[in-house]
């Protein structure tokens, strides 16, 4: 099975500090991969390197066989940052429409997708509200809707559960599983281990800029991954 994302021997430095050390990782199609690790482990640096937002000194990253940071490598992917933010004078509908248009949607197709996705995320009553008036959770849902409307083959979510209440977290997990069922691939960067182990397929543990282990969540019984992760990171300190 050909990898969607292939990261080979990637190293990245900030001055003398090594943010990524010889990282190797593959994201296979129709899977949900969770990149986990403590603060400062290098998760965001890796995500930004894949998306072409940050450069790296050594190694290579390909997305669908195209080297990052070529714009073509981002043709079939969409990205949700940890704190979604857009121009506060945009309405919810305008924001989601902007994202849809950036991925080539227009007219009735665009409007129909906006209606469907916002209904799924429970923000259909907020369509005409300006972003400046939204709560943190509503803003995060708008960001998720903006990513989902792209219908990208692969989506990258940086801390997607941040700012969401338990009900919204459950709904988001269902939405992501539904998205995956459409033959899509999802890359999640998250701290909330209890949530991700319930619905992600694979994990990659990152610490001090290195991937220290990759594996399948199916090898763990309910709740046991959190303890395993803690021990693994402690031993790697």
């Amino acid at each position, binding site marked *: 099975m050909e990898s969607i994302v292939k990261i080979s021997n990637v190293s990245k430095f900030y001055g003398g500090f090594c943010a990524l050390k010889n990282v190797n990782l593959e994201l296979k199609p129709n899977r949900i991969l969770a990149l986990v690790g403590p603060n400062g482990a290098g998760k965001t640096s890796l995500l930004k390197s894949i998306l072409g937002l940050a450069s790296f000194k050594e190694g290579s990253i390909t997305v669908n066989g195209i080297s990052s940071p070529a714009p073509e490598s981002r043709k079939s992917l969409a990205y949700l940052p940890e704190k979604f*933010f857009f121009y506060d004078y945009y309405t919810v509908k305008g924001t989601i429409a902007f994202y849809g248009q950036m991925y080539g949607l227009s007219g009735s197709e665009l409007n129909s997708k906006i209606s469907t996705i916002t209904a799924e995320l429970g923000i259909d009553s907020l369509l005409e509200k300006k972003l400046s008036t939204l709560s943190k959770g509503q803003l995060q849902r708008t960001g998720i809707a903006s990513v989902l409307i792209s219908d990208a083959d692969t989506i990258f979510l940086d801390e997607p559960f941040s700012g969401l209440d338990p009900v919204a977290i459950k709904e988001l997990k269902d939405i992501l599983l539904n998205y995956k069922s459409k033959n899509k691939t999802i890359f999640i960067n998250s701290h909330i281990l209890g949530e991700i182990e319930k619905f992600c397929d694979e994990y990659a543990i990152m610490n001090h800029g290195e991937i220290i282990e990759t594996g399948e969540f199916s090898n763990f019984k309910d709740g046991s991954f959190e303890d395993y992760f803690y021990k693994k990171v402690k031993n790697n300190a």
Partner: protein
Amino acid sequence: MLSVLMTNTFLKEIRNKSLIFLGLLNIAIVIVISVIIKSLGESTLAQDGLNFVGGGALGIYFLCINFWIVFLAYLIGSNTIASDLNSKIVNQLVSFPISRWQYILVRALGAWLIILAFYFLSYFVGGLVFSGVTGVEVEMGKFVYAFLCNVFPLLAAVLVSMFFSLYLNRTFTFVTCIFVSFIVRTSTGFVSKMGLERMLEDFSFLKGLGLVFHYLFPHISSWSGYANSNLFNSETNFALASESVHLVVMILLWSLLINIIFNRKEL
């Protein structure tokens, strides 16, 4: 995709407070001066006097527009990328399948077009209102030519301020642009007065610095001065051909510099 981003640039910059403020100021100036001239015409002045006062007011109005349109270009140029960088929205924008230079191009062209639209409206609508109220006839050829003279220098002004905004905050970018503009104006005056050969004689650090500013920065105020001299039939020693070549080179150079720096930027 780029047209969507261009529309986004317009929506963003049309809300620029400086643009709104100068727009309102323009309207206020046009209304106040028109009312004064009209009331003078109804009470004391004969038509000849009215034409004289109206012509003078029109001239001052154009001078003001040509003066502050450059400031506006610096203000909008210093904001257009900087606001995206500060709010981190730029991360989302360049994660779309567009290259960074396309993002820069769209933002620069969008900002430039907004400034041109403002310039066009101020210049022509203001001119027509004055003309209508005072009966002063505007020489349309000169009027249009003076406008066109400032079109591409404004793009250069946007590019220079965009470049500084990659390093400095908005206020410092604006102040730096004004400062650089002053130095360029001074050095250009020296070079055109003394000539290059005399500048190179007894070469000193200050002369070298002057030459760097003269050759590596666009001569925006010189173009503005040339536009005004055409409008008011005053003499000028502006070398149109060499200045045009210099302007084109500057636009390409500063576009390239922004592109190189922005491409290397960690977002």
